[in-house]
């Protein structure tokens, strides 16, 4: 009899407690600061893409999930600072193991693993995220790429980097 009552007491106690589950997807938990979710490709404030198509992320990727092809910028059609930009950038999310090596390898802090963990596909083709899907939206004060720019302004492809803080 006593064990039964003890059990019922536990039940009654937890009924009064605040629930630990959240009703996803209506409600979402904040992720930790160093959470590694789906990648995004960053832009500078002027709208130019940070990615220069160097393919170091693809070289660092242990799962061979990244495919990059590069092409040459011109001042009439400029995608990124410097001479080179990524004309094709694809990540196969089925292959990706979210290790973040790509982020470490990136010389321009272009690729960052962000908070989005909601990845679901009904088809293998859908798992391939193209550059358009990965690129961040153009900032308010920026212009979309390709941009037409003044000659001789964006000559340097690798910006001066500060030590990463987080």
């Amino acid at each position: 009899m006593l064990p039964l009552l003890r059990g019922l007491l536990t039940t009654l106690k937890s009924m009064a407690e605040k629930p630990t589950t959240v009703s996803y997807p209506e409600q979402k938990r904040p992720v930790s600061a160093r959470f590694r979710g789906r990648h995004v490709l960053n832009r500078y404030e002027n709208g130019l893409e940070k990615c220069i198509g160097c393919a170091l992320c693809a070289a660092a990727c242990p799962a061979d999930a990244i495919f990059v092809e590069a092409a040459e910028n011109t001042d009439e059609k400029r995608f990124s600072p410097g001479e080179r930009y990524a004309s094709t950038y694809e990540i196969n999310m089925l292959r990706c193991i979210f290790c973040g090596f790509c982020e470490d390898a990136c010389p321009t802090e272009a690729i960052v693993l962000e908070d989005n963990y909601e990845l679901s596909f009904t088809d293998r083709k859908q798992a391939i995220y193209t550059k358009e899907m990965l690129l961040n939206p153009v900032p308010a004060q920026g212009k979309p790429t390709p941009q037409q720019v003044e000659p001789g302004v964006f000559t340097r492809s690798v910006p001066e980097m500060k030590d990463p803080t987080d």
Partner: protein
Amino acid sequence: MPKLVNLTINHTRVTVPEGTLIVDAAKEAGINIPVFCYHPKMEPVGMCRMCLVDVARPVIDRATGQPVLEADGAPKLSFGPKLETACTTPVSEGMLVVEDSPKVTAARKDILEFLLTSHPLDCPICDKGGECPLQNLTLGYGPTESRFDFADKLHHAKRVPLGELIFLDRERCIQCGRCVRFQEKIAGDPVIGFYQRGRKLEIQTQTQPGFDSIFSGNTSDICPVGALTTADFRFGARPWEMEAHPSICAQCAVGCNIVFNTKREARSEGGMAIKRVMPRQNEAVNEIWLCDKGRFGYHYLQSGERLTRPMIRQNGELVPVSWETATDTIVERLKTGRSGLTVLAGGRLANEDLFNLKRLADAEHGKTLFYTHMGGGDLTGQVGLAPGSNLATLGKGDAVLVVASDLHEEAPIWWLRLKQAAARGASLVVLNPRATRLDDFAAISQRYHYGRVMDALAALFAGEAGQVLSQAANLVIFFGSEGLGVDGSQAVAQACANLLIRTGHTGRPNNGLVGVWSEPNAQGAWELGYRPAKNLTAELAEAHVTLVAGADPAGDDPALAETLQQSEFLVVADLFMTETAKRANVVLPALPYSEREGSFTSGERRVQRFTAALPPREKAHTEAMIAARVAARLGLKIEESLPVVFEKLAAETPAFTGLSFDRLAETHPQKPLLSREDLYYSGTAYENTAGLGCTLALTGSPAEAEPVTPELPAPVENALLAVPITRLYDRSSTLVHSSSILGQRMIGAEVWLNPQDAAERGLSAGAEIEIHLKSANWPVKVVINADVPAGAALLPRSVGIPAFELAALEI
């Protein structure tokens, strides 16, 4: 045998020939001394100071001339006051070289820091990144952090096109001068040079158009930084992403060893594509060099215009069908027709294709004809170069004769090697109707009038040059087809073969006759028994079933096009919809050599193997397989598998006895040492791990014969003499659908005239005129060249004007 010298490098004892440089001696011992400006193919200059080492030499007692000994009996060594450059210092007896001391390490670090003070460090976007000596050596020996602010560095506009093929990035240049020295000493085209001094020094081109050299691509290989890169590969891929597939260049008869670098590509929907062509070391063929045609002319291999499906003619139209239907159509025709299959093959086919097609023709009571503009291949099979030949070993006491050929245009790498042979002391004799780039190095250079080559040869052999040639220790004769047709070049070859036989220059290495063919496997076709037809038009008109493979007779000659139009049943196997293919009853898509394996026989009679760089495109087959499939339907057994075909070929052809794909894949260590682990040493050429090839044995008993001199065309009042010549950037079947990158240099329909002839006719350079040749008019552009003899009108081959031998031409 040179004297051997003993020395110690670090703690390793080394014995090398006298005169060896420390850097090379260390390489022998497996010690890599870092270098930038030194290149084993060029004279050392000691410009970059990267190779500084500490050198100690035995102390010699001046009174006795004997080495001073230490207390323990070992010779006393004395280090120099300063470090020495390992690339300019030759070894000496008893020397001690220290390259791992703190002093040397500090020196290297300092040199690298200096080099990096004006380097932009844009490795992520640099085409050289990943195979860059500066990158590797900085990682190995350099400082970890720069004390130099980027803003203080030297800044230039990023890329400057030196020509349309090569880009220069002045910020990246470390001023080692490898490119300038290569162009001057090796390529013989001093078209780039240093401008200004000190920090302001930069490479400039001195020609218009810029960087006007056919060897310019090699400078991007040997550049130790990303200062010189090719326009073709610009941002094409990162070096580590690409696969390397060994192959053989198919642009001419030299047979340069190459590597196709391939990578997946978005444009090909994720399929593999060739990204660049790199040289592969073969010291007996191309060393580590390539000409620009070989390096940049590969685009036709992956052209979208290539044939992809078999087609048969139904109601006058070519319609796509399956391979079964196409094969059935051919087989039906062969079965029902009055038997006879005429195979007309070009020198672009591999040995295996030629062999299988010949077996099919033999089984069908047919004929095999070789489509060529040049004869004499039967003689190169008898008195050609014997196994063990290497043009790089020709030197003092040897002689080379070049007849009726502009090697700089027709076979650039042979030109390069003969230039080097002449520099080593070989006597070079050139007999050509007009001045060529070979004349600069020739001991004797003679001219003749077009059409008088046989008289000129006889006079040459009887004169001073004849003495030089007959008394040479080794004699190699190159014959070409400048102004000559099949019969004309056959006669020249015979006259040259007679000289070789008469003077005993046969059957030995480094002696013999070499044909300057235009196709990669022309020599192979001759060796396998293919011969040009005496009268091709008649042969084709008579044929019941004609199979044309790797050749475009209709595109070359309207008369042949007419004949082929009328032919009973024409089958064409080719890469593209050629003029001949347009007239065919059955068109079969062939596989280019980049998508299959096989072997070519070079002009030097070296059989070399190539491997598939890309997976075969859907629905295309090799010619060998086509022959096998047709044979199978006819109840014959012909092998499909290419290694097996080659084995069979080797068993049945005396010259190929004992050869197999495995034999062709054998390698042995080559000098200078070159390996991918330390690519700073001699550039980005690939080490040869896929086979050096084998030279064919000589067959038949060479005998002198009277050359049959073809008749000259009857002189026509006021007419010029049309002279067919071969140019480098031609439009032969391979380069037809070529890269846009070589577009500017490609030749069109043009006629080369002497300034006086042009003036008499009131023609200026670039004028568009019509010429009258073989009772038809042809639109051409006028090129005026002072080297053209008076009365001659030079017509490049392969532009569709039917100039095959000397003929009268009216303007």
